[in-house]
Structures are given as structure tokens and as C-alpha cells.
């Protein structure tokens, strides 16, 4: 059966799932590009904590939408909460460790590391 033959609510839901999945992949892709491309650990921590968190948010939203109204969907909300609380803290911990280790942040004109 094709997508068009479904009732509008389900169609909208499927489209939304696909859109969220695409968003998740896009932002995780941005995160990956950033982690590989950016010049030093602080700059990498930016994308690692932010683009990736947003990507995870989109991905989990797609999962919640797929599961629909059942007990398990609550777990995606819990997951989202944990990720939004722990991810920035983890990035902060890493950046702080780098700072305590004496890494000077890269600035314009420095050699790429």
C-alpha cells in the first residue's frame, strides 16, 4: 500500500517521523564534520555537545512518534531529559580537563591541530 492511501493523520505522522529522522541525521552529520574539521578540542566540544544533542533530540522524537501512545514513549522523554542534562556537563568536564591540562585555545592564525 502506498503512502497516499492512508488516512491523513497517519500520513502526517509518517512524514513527520521521516522529517525528524532526516533532521537527526543532519545534525549528527554536522556534529561529525565539526569534530573532524574544527581546529582544537574546545571548538570540537562545541559541536560534540550541541549539534549532537539536538540530533539525539530529533532521533528520540522520531522514536517516540513511532512508538505512539504507550508506556515506552515516556522512556524516550526520560532519555531526552538525561541527554540534555548530562551531555553539556560531559562536554564541560572534557573542556575543563583540557584547560587544566594547559591547552591554549586555538585562535585565528594558529597552526591547525
Amino acid at each position, binding site marked *: 500500500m502506498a503512502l497516499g492511501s492512508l488516512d491523513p493523520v497517519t500520513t502526517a505522522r509518517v512524514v513527520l517521523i521521516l522529517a525528524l529522522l532526516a533532521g537527526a541525521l543532519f545534525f549528527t552529520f554536522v556534529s561529525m564534520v565539526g569534530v573532524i574539521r574544527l581546529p582544537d578540542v574546545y571548538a570540537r566540544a562545541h559541536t560534540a555537545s550541541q549539534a549532537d544533542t539536538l540530533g539525539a533530540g530529533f532521533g528520540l522524537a522520531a522514536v517516540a512518534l513511532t512508538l505512539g501512545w504507550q508506556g515506552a514513549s515516556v522512556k524516550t522523554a526520560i532519555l531526552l531529559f*538525561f541527554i540534555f*542534562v*548530562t551531555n553539556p*556537563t560531559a562536554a*564541560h*568536564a572534557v573542556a*575543563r580537563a583540557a584547560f587544566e591540562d594547559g591547552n591554549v585555545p586555538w585562535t585565528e592564525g594558529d597552526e591547525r591541530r
Partner: protein
Amino acid sequence: MSDTPGAGSDVDDAAAGSGDASDAPDVSDRPPIEPTYSGHDDRPHLSQIQRQQTPYTESQVIMSTVKVVAPFALTFGLFVTFHGADSPGGGFQGGAIAAAVVLMIAFAFGIDATREWFTNVVVVGLAVGGVLVFGGIGLVGLVDGGTFLEYARLPIPHPVKYGMEGVEILGIAPIVAGVLVGLFFLLAAGFDDRDGAGTETEIADATTDDATTEDDR
């Protein structure tokens, strides 16, 4: 790291709470310190060894996050333990998660504070108690004239199901949690908590009688 033993023990005393500051000769010698908003660097500097002995605490951001996350994580660990019967999980996994919570707290608050909170009695009690409960549940069947771990003879409703739950929850989970936390504490104590830390002789000392180190102090 060459350091005079005297300077090392000074910090040690202060940290240990005996705090008889009149013994510390260098306190009055220090230049008066102008209190600053965050004057970390104009304090008399600490050698590497001394710094190791200072209770190092994590940044308050990490501390607060651990404070928020820890109750949820422990609840989830116990949830996994309790729900081993009908969904993935069980005593082993739940016990490991609970132990991980203790580890998390140890990283945020420092090992000393954690050991003060999660005392030795609790650690050893969990491990030993778990084994005893597991064996005890097994022996009930034997006492009743059956075989070892014959849950059907337990004097409770749904004996088989709740017998298994009991073994998972009161037996395996505490053993795993207790042993993992115990191992963590053991490793964290390491070789270097004695004076002069970490040299070969110290490791040799650590394996000989403890009485010698009592004299050193």
C-alpha cells in the same frame, strides 16, 4: 617528587581533621595573605605531592549534575533489578548500575567523602549479606526436606516466582554492587596513600607488616 616529609604531614594533619595548628611551624612564617576574590595563585604554592593529598573536588557544575542524576540512576538500577522477571535485566545488571552510581558520586565529590558516606560496613555488608541471603533461600528448601534452592518449598505465595525474585534482588544484586564498590575503593586506595608515595620501597613497605608504617607517623 622530592618533598620534605614535614611539609607533607602538615597538610595531612589538617586534612585528617586533627588540626592542631600550633604544631605547624610554617603557618606563622607565611606572608600575610591579602584575601582576594579568587586568589588561588598568591597562596603559598603546593608541591605536587601536597596537591595530591588535598581533596580534589570536581567543578560545581559536575557536582550539581551528579546530584541531580544520581537519584534517578539509582532508582533505575533498582527498577532493572526488580523487573528482571519480565523484561531484560536482573540482579547482576541492576547491581552494576547501582555500583556505577557510587562511582559517579566518588568522581564528583572525592573518594574520602564518598567513603564517609558509603561506609565500609555497608560495602562488606552488601557483599557478605548477599551471599548469605542467597545461600539461606537455598537452604530453606533443604531444611524443609527438599533439595537446595527448591523454591516451591518456600513459605510464601507464588513461591517459585518470588523465590527467584528474592535471589535476584536480595542475593545477586547486593553481591555485585558490594564487590564492585569494594574493588573500586580498594583500587582507589592504591599504593600511594603512605608518606612519600609511590616509590618501589613504598610498594615493598605496603606488602610488609603494617606496624612499620605506624612508627613512621
